[in-house]
């Protein structure tokens, strides 16, 4: 393992007993290295094994196989040392609803062996940095979804962890709150905390993460920066829409053998052309297809999304897979 790795796993696995003696392989022999100082994301549909992987790394679940070191400690034998160095914000948050935000933070600070005075100073600092003044002294049950998330985040960093785990940090939030949470996550990262998060939002992985592992059915199917992953898709996509199939077919014939075209795909009255550097290729492609008798009705140039990557790697769309819910993530 590299010395800079804050998380290192070898063949990390988790099997759950399923119905009728069947075994659910939630996580299958995952090898992972997360470098100190990065924001690393696990992207995948519900049931892909993201949360299970995270729960194992957070000491909440005992792995069925493989090894891992987290923050320099062995997961199997030094769970309590790991707990001192990590922060964790689960999907449910975990605030005591009838206590105020400040009381919740105080309890957690004290559980990390801080004295009351030290804890109070730490909480004051977080209140200021995360802008909690307006609600920190109200009971948690009165919070909006966004306020709850920000307080969860404050609770997750109460011990100034080296490594912060965020399990689907913005699921269920409105777009404004989501952006606010992203900003605060970046803020925590700037303070020197490594961040490991799970998400099934492409935009979130794209906007926040330095590196992303795409997970499907308990395996990592792709790993890299969002830009690298998107490069795996053959370039950009030019979609030419015609009045009928004949127009699209004629355009396809005109582009036959063209050096610019990496791949093309005919779907009804639409011709999809895969090219490198779509912005430069678009005028040239239009010139070629313009020689035909059928004028194109509309043209779209699109860059590949992480959904296209997922589609290419698994044959399924990330959004479709969400609905499947093959097995519960916990």
């Amino acid at each position: 393992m590299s010395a800079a790795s804050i998380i290192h796993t070898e063949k990390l696995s988790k099997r759950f007993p399923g119905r009728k003696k069947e075994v659910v392989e939630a996580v299958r022999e995952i090898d992972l290295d997360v470098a100190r100082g990065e924001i690393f994301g696990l992207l995948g549909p519900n049931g892909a094994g993201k949360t299970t992987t995270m729960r194992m790394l957070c000491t909440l679940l005992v792995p069925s196989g493989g090894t891992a070191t987290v923050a320099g400690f062995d997961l199997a034998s030094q769970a309590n040392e790991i707990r001192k160095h990590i922060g964790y914000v689960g999907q449910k948050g975990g605030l005591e609803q009838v206590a105020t935000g400040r009381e919740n933070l105080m309890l957690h600070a004290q559980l990390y062996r801080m004295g009351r005075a030290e804890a109070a100073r730490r909480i004051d600092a977080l209140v200021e940095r995360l802008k909690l003044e307006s609600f920190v002294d109200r009971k948690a049950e009165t919070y909006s979804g966004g306020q709850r998330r920000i307080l969860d985040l404050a609770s997750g960093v109460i011990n100034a962890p080296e490594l912060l785990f965020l399990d689907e940090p913005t699921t269920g939030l409105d777009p404004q709150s989501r952006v606010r949470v992203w900003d605060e996550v970046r803020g925590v990262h700037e303070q020197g905390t490594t961040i490991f998060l799970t998400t099934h939002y492409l935009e979130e992985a794209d906007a926040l993460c330095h590196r992303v592992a795409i997970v499907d059915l308990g395996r990592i199917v792709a790993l890299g920066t969002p830009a690298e992953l998107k490069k795996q898709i053959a370039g950009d996509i030019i979609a030419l829409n015609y009045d009928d199939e004949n127009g699209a077919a004629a355009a396809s014939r005109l582009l036959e053998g063209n050096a610019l075209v990496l791949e093309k795909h005919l779907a009804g009255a639409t011709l999809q052309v895969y090219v490198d550097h779509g912005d430069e290729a678009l005028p040239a492609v239009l010139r070629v297809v313009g020689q035909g008798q059928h004028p194109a009705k509309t043209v779209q140039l699109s860059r590949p999304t992480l959904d296209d990557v997922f589609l290419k790697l698994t044959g399924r769309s990330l959004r479709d897979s969400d609905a499947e819910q093959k097995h519960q993530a916990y």
Partner: protein
Amino acid sequence: MRDMYLITLNELRVTMRNPFWSISGLFQPIIYLLLFGPLLNGIASTRGLPGGNAIQFFAPGLLIMNALFGAGFEGFTLRDKLDSGFLERLRVTPISRLSLALGFIMQSSVNLVIQSVALIVCAFFFGLRLDVLGGVALVFLILLIGITMASISYRLALVIREGGILAGIINTFVLPAMILSGIMLPVSFGPPIIQWLARIDPFLYAVNASRALVTGTLADSSVLAAFLVFGALAALTLAIFIHGMREAVA
């Protein structure tokens, strides 16, 4: 140790903020005291009942019933904490699983003692005569029962996600345990099969001991039996709960 107090204090604060459950838990025994006690008075001279004063017979049983039901349903508070993610949040802190388990047990114990004292005060107004030393011993017995029931209830809550199923399972055991213990009516009223079943109900010993302790007969054989039975059960169930907390995947 400090962690255990932190959890206990936090849980007690939560109870104080929302004392409805604690107070409503007392409704049931108080209603029995108000409505069922007078009924017993009517048959107080019947054989098998201590002559004359039904409250001396009934109130000690009610105290045991309150422990049986009150602590028996503590699992629901833990279920809430699992559902809200609160317990999970605690489990990623360096707090020991032992402190966590004991914190919950402490909270339920403090709650139960307060309820029991409140119930004894109520029973005074109905004419209960209580021996002081016996009363103190009785509170200890109630504590052991509370630890036993809360441990079982918490342990079940760790594995049963569905609140309705949890309630069903707890009721299935708690209700027969209550009837066979002779809290409501003496078991001697029943046929031999009932009397035989009652003898394997640990709460029969607790109720008998409670009645003896109220009058100050500490030397009664039922007192020793009850302390032995519930001392052992409390230790066993607590160990099972602590083990469950260590293993828990929730």
